[in-house]
């Protein structure tokens, strides 16, 4: 099985010369087994200052109450739920990469799944902190759980999407966490068997005694496949339920059946953008160019065009249906979004999410690292504005014109949002430092079939169709980690 050669037409998933199993281990564990470099410390310092800002702002909110935020009696949800939905959406790409791409046998997921899943977990942590802090009396958060009547007057209302959300988010977080950690076990065992002293003791505890016997691997693969199978509908259900928090209300602009697919596509869109933002830096700083190749970057950009276009169709459908429905409140809600006092937020959303990602149709742009990185940030900004537009523009002009207001964030709103980004990056940087950022065991599976080295040997042997070999060599021109001169002589 491991000697199975795939079609020469497929682009390689690992590049570089002299790739051996040992070299993969060495390359991936460089940041884990050595002292952190300057870039890591600079990043970590900035991120942890952000995290401290978050701690301060959230503590201030707990101390003074939700009045510390810019909310008013008309706009009861603003930056808090915007931030919550933004973070949950970002989390979705990790599960998509680890679960959906596993079911579809997309082997390029092998080198990005670990860090994308870590991103999922940290993003859901950030989302959950918003939920806790927007509760007003966060110490009574357990009232959202189905507990006996002595804790309140009644059982929780299972007809409400807010209760479904409690179940969805907590299931999503805990299932993602065990999926990620089970996948980490073999790689933690690798670190353990190379370490000495205290480090060995710590990684030994974390490795759960993994030894890589036949039965362990067999069960491991069964577990991975079934977890992927259940995580796929799970990830779709989570953002569906998040969208139902809005769609089941009777607020114009929220009460639409298009919300579930529209939110799920948007979540995957923003999630891949965040994966792109993180991995383009990680690959550079950690020297992972041979494992996270231009093929990975281009594939993710293609997913960004697809999901961005789905989101674009959803925006246009919303506008059309608002007009076509003949419902005046719905019509006004959308007129107000497009041309009301928040027109700039709406058009910022449209530009960042629908127009600028279309640039990825140009091969030059989607295989340019700088352009991919900038556009991924633009998408993240756009998706934040999407949630802001949905939430605030629907609320700020309600059914009663005398209560129409604008929303102005306070410094606490801003500090919690900026701080949550700090929390996210702090966790992500700690992950890069202490755990292998690439799933070594899974990447090792690709060495004999999908690596540039294996394919080069095949070409050198000369038994291949010349046209196919030429097609393959031409496809390598986009790779920044391949030297085309190596192929000149073959």
């Amino acid at each position, binding site marked *: *099985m*491991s000697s199975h050669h795939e079609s020469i037409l497929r682009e390689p998933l690992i590049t570089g010369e002299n790739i051996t199993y040992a070299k993969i281990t060495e390359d991936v564990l460089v940041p884990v087994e050595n002292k952190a470099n300057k870039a890591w410390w600079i990043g970590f310092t900035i991120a942890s200052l952000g995290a401290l800002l978050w701690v301060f702002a959230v503590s201030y909110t707990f101390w003074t109450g939700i009045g510390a935020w810019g909310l008013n009696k008309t706009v009861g949800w603003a930056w808090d739920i915007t931030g919550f939905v933004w973070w949950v959406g970002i989390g979705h790409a990790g599960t998509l990469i680890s679960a959906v791409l596993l079911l579809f046998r997309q082997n390029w997921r092998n080198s990005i799944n670990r860090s994308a899943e870590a991103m999922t977990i940290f993003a859901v942590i950030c989302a959950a902190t918003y939920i806790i802090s927007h509760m007003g009396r966060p110490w009574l958060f357990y009232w959202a759980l189905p507990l006996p009547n002595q804790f309140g007057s009644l059982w929780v209302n299972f007809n409400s999407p807010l209760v479904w959300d409690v179940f969805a988010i907590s299931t999503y977080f805990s299932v993602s966490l065990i999926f990620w950690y089970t996948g980490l076990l073999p790689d933690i065992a690798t670190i353990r068997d190379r370490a000495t002293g205290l480090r060995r003791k710590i990684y030994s505890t974390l490795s759960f005694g993994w030894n890589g016997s036949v039965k362990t691997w067999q069960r491991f693969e*069964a*577990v991975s496949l079934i977890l992927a199978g259940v995580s796929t*509908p799970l990830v779709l259900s989570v953002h569906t339920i998040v969208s139902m928090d809005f769609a089941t209300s009777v607020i114009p602009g929220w009460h639409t059946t298009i919300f579930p697919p529209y939110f799920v596509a948007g979540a995957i869109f923003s999630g891949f953008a965040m994966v792109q933002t993180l991995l383009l830096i990680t690959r550079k700083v950690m020297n992972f160019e041979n494992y996270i190749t231009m093929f990975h970057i281009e594939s993710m950009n293609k997913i960004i065009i697809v999901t961005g276009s789905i989101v674009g169709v959803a925006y246009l459908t919303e506008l059309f249906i608002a007009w076509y429905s003949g419902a005046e409140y719905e019509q006004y809600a959308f007129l107000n979004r497009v041309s009301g006092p928040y027109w700039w937020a709406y058009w910022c959303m449209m530009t960042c999410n629908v127009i600028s990602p279309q640039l990825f149709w140009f091969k030059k742009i989607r295989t340019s690292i700088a352009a991919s990185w900038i556009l991924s940030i633009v998408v993240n900004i756009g998706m934040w504005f999407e949630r802001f537009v949905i939430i605030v523009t629907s609320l700020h002009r309600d059914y009663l014109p005398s209560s129409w207001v604008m929303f102005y964030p306070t410094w606490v709103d801003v500090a919690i949002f900026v701080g949550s980004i700090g929390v996210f990056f702090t966790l992500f940087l700690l992950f890069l430092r202490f755990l292998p950022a690439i799933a070594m*065991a899974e990447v090792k599976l690709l060495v004999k079939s999908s690596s540039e080295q294996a394919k080069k040997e095949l070409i050198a042997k000369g038994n291949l169709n010349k046209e196919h070999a030429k097609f393959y060599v031409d496809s390598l021109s986009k790779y920044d980690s391949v030297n085309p001169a190596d192929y000149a002589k073959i």
Partner: protein
Amino acid sequence: MSKTKYILGAFADPDEMLLGIDKLQEHNIAIYDVFTPMPIHGIEAKLGIKPSRLPKAAFWFGLTGTCTAFAMIYYMLVFDWPMNIGGKPAFAVPDFVPVLFELTVLFAAFGMVFTFFFKNHLFPGRTPRVMHLRATNDRFIIAINAQEVSDAKKVESLLKDAGAVEVLHNDRKYVSYE
């Protein structure tokens, strides 16, 4: 030689290791276990290991989750304290679906993973029972119980023929206790 407990053949290439398994089996030499840094398909079939029953276990765990969720919601909303919400029925099955689904997934995932950990004795702090330290890095190890083998030299030559880069005759079963 009688002190040898386990003979280990260390391979640098998974295909050579699979060849090694074939060669040993041709000579009716029992293989104790195989340790690899990554999942190698085909070993289970050669060693005659049955497919895992974990997927079936996952199904039953999932079904337990569905039933638990249904019983919980039915008890709370229909039996214990039915509420009149706009005159709608308390027993509103479509509204139960999201929570039924979430608990199905939760039970299936946790049930299966914990069964896996339990069956393979994986838990935090367990002493790793490792026979070769590079088995988690770049070596594919075939372990043979030396007590069951009459001719250790022959085992060694079979392993070497298949392409083993190193053959060890270990007096101790596990190296990780040292």
